[in-house]
């Protein structure tokens, strides 16, 4: 994996909400076509980290971001067009949000925002994205029902399908499995393994074993700091630099 070029480079990233620090001086690199896992207990700053990368700070009052983030050739915090930036990054948050429109329109929204209007093209995108999100079999015959009235697990897969419909370079998932049953979780994990060949994936998870199953490299966040980053296999085999990391992986706190 180390031969892959860097996709996202983060340097001295600090995030504050008002005067409360959420993340302090985090530096790391995410490489192309890897699944980069981030584990850590609540309040570790994992979600804030994701928000900084797709510039959600603009919409969050009191959120202050300092430090450097490079996404490909873009300096994220000096980017003129944050909308173009967000189109290149798909995000899935823990609580699924099916928009109050049909399932079809949910998935066709991002392509439409990018100017795709041809019905045939949209049909192809919708079917492909729903299939990849392991949802097509369940909703393929009722694409005109409301996306917001699906069950929680289905809405989460709809959210994933929507993120994929942007055809993103980076897919960021924030504890996506909270609202999904174990069987579906496994199906989505398989999908993520396949997607890796097409995009870079950042996987924030509260399930340590999920990181072990999926991530090529894993970062351990604790209380707003990045304690360590390492090869996932090595880390889970006990090759860690900090005792805290081992304790967390082994479930001694968290």
């Amino acid at each position: 994996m180390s031969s892959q070029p860097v996709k996202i480079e983060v340097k001295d990233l600090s995030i504050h909400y008002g005067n409360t620090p959420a993340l302090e001086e985090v530096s790391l690199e995410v490489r192309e076509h890897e699944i980069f896992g981030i584990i850590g207990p609540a309040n570790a700053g994992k979600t804030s980290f994701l928000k900084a990368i797709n510039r959600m700070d603009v919409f969050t009052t009191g959120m202050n971001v300092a430090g450097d983030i490079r996404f490909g050739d873009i300096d994220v915090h000096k980017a003129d067009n944050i909308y173009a930036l967000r189109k290149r990054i798909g995000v899935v948050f823990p609580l699924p949000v099916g928009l109050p429109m049909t399932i079809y329109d949910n998935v066709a929204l991002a392509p439409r925002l990018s100017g795709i209007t041809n019905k045939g093209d949209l049909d192809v995108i919708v079917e492909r994205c729903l299939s990849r999100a392991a949802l097509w079999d369940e909703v393929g015959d009722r694409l005109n029902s409301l996306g917001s009235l699906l069950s929680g697990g289905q809405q989460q897969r709809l959210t994933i399908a929507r993120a994929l419909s942007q055809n993103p370079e980076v897919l960021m998932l924030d504890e996506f499995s909270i609202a999904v049953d174990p069987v579906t979780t496994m199906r989505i994990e398989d999908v993520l393994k396949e997607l890796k060949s097409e995009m870079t994936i950042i996987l924030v998870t509260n399930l340590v074993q999920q990181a072990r199953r999926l991530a090529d490299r894993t970062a351990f966040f604790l209380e707003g700091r990045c304690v360590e980053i390492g090869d996932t296999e090595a880390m889970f085999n006990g090759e860690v630099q900090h005792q805290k990391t081992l304790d967390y992986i082994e479930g001694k706190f968290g």
Partner: protein
Amino acid sequence: MFSTTQLNERNQRTQGLFRLLFLMMTWLLILPVLIIVSTLIYKGGSIISADFLFTVPTDGMTAGGIFPALFGTVWLVGVALLASVPIGIAAAIYLSEYAPDNWLTRVINLAIINLAGVPSIVHALFGVGAFVIFFKFGTSILAASLTLAIMTLPVVIVASRESLQAVPHAFREACWNMGATRWQTIRRVVLPNAVSGILTGVILEVSRTTGETAPIMFTGAAFYLPFLPESVFDQTMALSLHLFVVSTQVPNVPEALPYGVALVLIAMVLIMNSISIAFRMYLRGKKKW
């Protein structure tokens, strides 16, 4: 397991007593409406006919119909809405979707609340100064309607803003995360889901505007003008003012006439309110989340 103690019994009795008290107060509310409507129908119902609605008043307003007033009220309310609805909705969208939470926004919100509290007679005098004299519209439908529009603006803004805020914030974030601009988010997700609430607010506002008298009295409503206006620069009769005139200013009016005018006025308002309520019930049935 839970034996009924004396304390329990007393709590039960007290709770029943309060329920009865609240119920009685609620029934008391209906009483004035029932009395007003039944009196109007009893005393004025006999005069209502197609002739009454669609002919001009005659014999110094002691006979004939009310058509110029009915027609004028529709004009006044229509032009007022044309002015207040676009401005009000645009302002509501700004306040709900764009405005940063700073002192200026708070001042604007405070101003809107205060504007809603300004007495209608003050609005009327403002209308005379601003539209009749300064903008030289003269006493005309335009001046009267714009005065009504200013009066209704705060209510349109507040109702629209509430409807926009009722659309969950998570929908906006989901949209933004896909790279949608604020405007794309508003147009595709927020507005389609707020439009029903906004419309309900507007319809309720129509019914309120219909009955207003003071703001149009000095700005465009005529005492007696037995023909129809030809443009927005003409004066017009209006139902609300006509009611005031025939009940207090003109001698020898048959008793049924003012009651008939009041009945038509209140019927217009009740019809508007009913449409609004029916609309709301219809939309509640197709809730999307």
